């Protein structure tokens, strides 16, 4: 029983990583109704760049978070410029394909820069907390805390600032928003900068939690980020947080009961269950079925 509880708790905490990635996907979708497939790759690239920056500047380990945030924001703007601004948004598949291309490009640049070798990443929070044999990882609790703070910050930004008002207006009715004098280009660029910065932080925290960075992380984080976004509800910020925790916990439980080789089958089944019975996700609105 203790093993089961421990597995559940470990999964929940690890799910905080998925939540952070899911937040970035959902933020862009919420505003532009487009999926940025390159998000996880850019987040990890931000984490790599942050680490390189602090090594070059001789800064302390904690500085990797703001450095990764800045690098991630820059990558966000670049992705917006290359994959969205220059691509006809009216075509439903154009931005999807351009961001898939960007994902592969970023991934291969990182592979070539590092020769695919894992890079040791600084850990900010050490140790475990718990009682007896039941232990919780301090670094994952920190990630969980950061995810909650980011969620609160985003909700505040969206519902209590002029920028948030403009963002929601663009999200709900871009044409009306433009008629009100809101620059779509500006709002979209700010959204990508924000999500990119958030991605940089997520990448740094993932590197810290895993203990290293490797291009191997890109594929699973992209897949899990998308699953979290769909299960949480496309565009829903609280949904991304809750779905991230749910997917993390479910993944660990499936592994506990059925083994690692069957684990991902059940995670995908969970996704299909949502797509069939609740296509809008936990916190989204159900899209009309034709």
């Amino acid at each position, binding site marked *: 029983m203790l093993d089961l509880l421990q597995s559940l708790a470990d999964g929940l905490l690890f799910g905080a990583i998925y939540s952070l990635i899911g937040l970035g996907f959902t933020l862009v979708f919420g505003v532009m109704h487009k999926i940025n497939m390159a998000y996880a790759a850019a987040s990890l690239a931000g984490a790599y760049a942050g680490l390189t920056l602090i090594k070059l500047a001789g800064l302390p380990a904690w500085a990797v978070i703001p450095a990764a945030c800045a690098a991630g924001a820059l990558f966000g703007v670049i992705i917006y410029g290359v994959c969205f601004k220059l691509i006809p948004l009216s075509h439903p598949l154009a931005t999807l394909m351009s961001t898939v291309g960007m994902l592969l490009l970023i991934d291969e640049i990182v592979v070539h820069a590092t020769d695919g070798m894992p890079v040791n990443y600084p850990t900010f929070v050490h140790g475990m907390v718990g009682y007896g044999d039941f232990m919780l990882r301090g670094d994952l609790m920190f990630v969980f805390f950061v995810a909650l703070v980011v969620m609160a910050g985003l909700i505040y930004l969206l519902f209590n600032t002029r920028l948030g008002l403009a963002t929601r207006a663009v999200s709900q009715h871009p044409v009306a928003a433009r008629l009100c004098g809101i620059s779509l280009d500006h709002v979209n660029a700010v959204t990508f900068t924000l999500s990119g910065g958030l991605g940089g932080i997520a990448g740094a925290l993932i590197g810290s939690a895993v203990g290293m960075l*490797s291009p191997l992380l890109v594929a699973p984080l992209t897949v899990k980020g998308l699953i979290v976004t769909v299960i949480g509800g496309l565009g829903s910020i609280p949904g991304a947080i809750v779905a991230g925790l749910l997917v993390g916990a479910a993944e660990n439980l499936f592994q506990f009961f059925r083994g690692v080789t069957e684990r991902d089958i059940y995670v995908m089944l969970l996704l299909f269950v949502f797509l069939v019975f609740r296509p809008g996700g936990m916190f989204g609105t159900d899209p009309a079925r034709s």
Partner: protein
Amino acid sequence: MSHARVCAFSAAIALAAWTMPGSAIAQERQVKITGFGALSGVVRSFGVNSKAALEAAADQINKSGGVTLGDGAKGKIVIDYHDDRCNAEEGISVLRRVASSESLVAVAPTCSNVAEPMFGIMQKKFGDAGDTGLQFPVFTDVAIKIGLAKISEWAFRNVPNETEMYGTLFRWIKETKPDLKTLYGGVEEDFAHSRASWYAVMKEVAGKEGLQVLGESKWLLNDTNFSNQAREAKKASPDIMAIAAHPFTTCGMLKEMARQGVRPKLLIGLTSSSSMETLQGCAGEAETIIIPTSFAPINADAQAAAAAVSKYNGSLDLHSGAAWENVFILKRVIEAEKVMAKPDTLQADREKIRAGLAKLAETDGLLGKTKRTPDREAVKPYLFVHAKSGKWEVLHTPSL
């Protein structure tokens, strides 16, 4: 000089050059060796190092006169390297392309999951007219999963024999640390080499050496969360923990074991993890891990080869060391079999190389003599290294 005289004079010079052995024109004959492996993707470092080793070895041979061909002419080795992205379809496609080129032999591939299906499309038995499989010699440097060369008589490998290495390692452990009785494994379930190394090699030979195998924890190549697996290992409480995984997940598991306070008395790693990747990823957690390997720069030849390869932006390790050795072995075979390296003798030359490789009973390696087995595999000299203060240090040299 009239036009007719110029033509006659030129023709005479050309004829003289053509018929004179060792002439400038003959010296330009090329011995094409094609390498391929992963130059992109997460195992790119393997391809980068193999390419550098092939080019450095070819350069050394060419600078010392090249290869003596069947008619006494000198040939220069030309290395061409392709990317198969560690993908079976890509590997097969590259092999087909290479086989239709002027290349005499390939040194490839990086990944066992490429080697296995790739050898499958090659002619199984040499000379079988009913088998239309590719008739092209491949001399593998990296793909290490046991027993692959038996798939085709055109396949040869110069990779370490893991059964031999781990057998000796467990015997050595039994002799030097008799208090260690139990073994637990950690295995990357979705990677061919890791799986084969645990289930068919480590687990088998450890049992034969009298160690009690308590079981194994499993994970996948892309996994990042090892909490369940580390807890399983903690419950098993083994004396020895053997991790059959590549550096990324080896490091992930070692870090999680450190967090959960799983401290076996001895750690053993996968042959391929005795590389800089492991030390870059988790030098602290990997401290004292013991890995059998077929390369370490412990003598003048190995050190010189490592220096030569580093000039080509590569690093010499057990895999790229084999690529280096393969070029020298091929030089010996080409000279012994009187390969001509002419366009009209291409298939005959390939068959000569295949025959020459099949005849070899022993080859020279960087650490000493390598025995060749009838099933076209190698039994290479090996040693045990362990991670110490962020470096690989030689711990024991059983076969040197």
